[in-house]
């Protein structure tokens, strides 16, 4: 697989996740792959936003990165270690996932829910590990949930609940965090709040100042606000990768989403903002002018 490795760009960030020749798919091996073959480097200690139209393979890619879906071909290195060599628990101490639709169990308090994140650090029978309390406490503090720690999860608002799920992932204390559309169902203010929280996540192992975060996001301007790095997928392949300013350009948006759009810089923060154009928009403006 290393034969396909592209020459490393000088001065580039070290890869947090390095995919080489990765192919993912469902059903028999003869069925066409949903993702790949794909070579992809996701920078360590940075937030990467994965964007793409529906059914472009975003969620499948994430399932491959959590090893929920076995690789059909290729290899994944996580922080320079071959993922296939790690046990399930060791992998869960390295890579955490916030799925798109987590199941809220009935009759569980926020603290109990967050404590579930400690599972990979415990023995097989789930006995308490040293540092559990510290990890749960910092996760709750960071997600601003300390005051709600003894509340039943089912009584939380949508925004609070999503923070509780994020706190579970934080308690897992992994250097790599994967998020599958973490802002679905949230009001806009809660989306911004959550993504800023994600952007500030530290690397709990202390290897780097910040954790390696990979988030599937569908709101492009918000993705550009939070991301250091961006990957656009189309048809299970990488259509473009780079900084948000490099990826969010009209040509890429046209290929990936079939969208006619203008891109302008945010007046305050400078990140690109996407302005979609409908079929009649340009003609109408020109007609008026």
């Amino acid at each position, binding site marked *: 697989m290393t034969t396909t490795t592209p020459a490393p760009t000088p001065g580039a960030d070290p890869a947090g996740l390095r995919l080489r020749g990765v192919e993912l798919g469902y059903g028999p091996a003869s069925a066409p792959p949903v993702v790949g073959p794909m070579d992809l480097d996701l920078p360590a200690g940075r937030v990467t936003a994965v964007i793409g139209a529906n059914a472009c393979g975003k969620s499948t890619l994430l399932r491959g990165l*959590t090893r929920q879906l076995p690789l059909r071909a290729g290899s994944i290195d996580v922080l320079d270690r071959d993922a296939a060599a790690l046990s399930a628990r060791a992998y869960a101490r390295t890579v955490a996932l*916030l*799925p798109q639709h987590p199941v809220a169990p*009935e009759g569980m308090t926020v603290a109990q829910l967050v404590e579930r994140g400690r*599972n990979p650090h415990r023995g*097989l029978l789930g006995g308490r590990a040293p540092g559990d309390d*510290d990890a749960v406490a910092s996760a709750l503090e960071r997600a601003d949930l300390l005051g709600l720690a*003894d509340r039943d999860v089912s009584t939380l608002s949508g925004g609070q609940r999503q923070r509780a799920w994020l706190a579970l992932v934080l308690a897992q204390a992994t250097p790599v965090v994967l998020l599958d559309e973490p802002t679905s169902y949230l009001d806009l203010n809660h989306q911004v709040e959550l993504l800023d929280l994600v952007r500030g996540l*530290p690397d709990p192992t202390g290897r780097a100042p910040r954790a390696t975060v990979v988030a599937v996001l569908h709101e492009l301007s918000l993705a550009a606000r939070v991301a250091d790095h961006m990957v656009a997928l189309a048809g299970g392949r990488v259509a473009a990768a780079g900084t948000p300013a490099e990826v969010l350009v009209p040509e890429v948006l046209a290929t990936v989403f079939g969208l006619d759009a203008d891109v302008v810089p945010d007046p305050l923060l400078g990140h690109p903002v996407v302005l979609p154009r409908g079929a009649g928009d340009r003609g109408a403006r020109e007609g008026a002018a």
Partner: protein
Amino acid sequence: MSPALPLTAAPTGPSADARDAVARLRRAGRRRLTLATAGLAALLVGLVLLRVTWGTYQVTVPDLVRILGGEVIPGASFIVLESKLPRAVAAMLSGAALGAAGALYRRTLRNPLASPDILGVTSGAAAGVVLLLAVTAGQAGGSTDLARAGAALAGGAAAAAAVFLAARSIGGERFVVAGIAVSAAGQAVVAGTMLSLAQHDLQSATVWIAGSLNGVTWGRIGLMAAALAVLLPLGAALHAALAPADVGPDLAHALGARPGPTGAAALAVGAALAAAATAAVGPLAFVALLATPLARGIAGGRPSLPVAALTGAVLVVLADVVAAEAVGLLAGGAALPTGVLTGAAGAPLMLWLLLRQGAVRAGARPA
């Protein structure tokens, strides 16, 4: 890049307040669990004592102690050692087995209505037993306790496998409906076979189908106890290993658990526990279904297999006290099969669970 956003510095530990709050909550939860376990154990001991001493034939506690010490009191010794005590022990063990089985099913399938009695295991095990009885009816000596336990296990396993194959995956509503269908088939086989077997003894057939502690023997109790000695620790370990599965299969996987294989093992152990109980005492309706939500309520929402097992034991001993002795005192000597009581009391509770499940789903829906 968005340099205007602040970058948080490298991790710092939690504040002392936060750490204290978390530790306090955890200790409170643990204390509640310890209290629940101790309270249920005390209640169980009390109920077993009541079952052995009280009823249409009363035995004083000093007499009971003397009998258990080996002394022979004419009449009392026989009734205690051959009727009251075996019933109480069988009720306790079968209740514990069903409660633990319910907890395993509940945690694996993440559905409060999924329990081995609803999903066909109990009736499959009962069908295995009656089919064995039908085959051995004409033979001298009939069937041994061991053969009976084996038939129950085979029937329960066949039912569980049928549900699994029909639903093709663990969990989901498909699994529940397949279970109900298999359960109906098992019940039909039991009822039909028993009626054919017992043309002249309809009453005793009626009693067995309903689940009864009448015919229990020390031999059957010994087999059940041996099975439980293996299955309960195994079940407790699987139950603990499935803790991450409470938050859904995707997240469980990301937490390093293997919900698929562990869940399948948990269902197999749960089915074996339910079959062991059924082989000894017949199909006791709803105990497995009810023990888990009750146990969760008692333990403050924490799923715990020991608490569920204790709750199941308390339920069956209590039901047996009421069915065999209290009804007897009220209705002049008649006694109900214990399973009738658990069935009649369980149906409204199951309907209530169904209503509550709807409410929980609504709460769980993303806002």
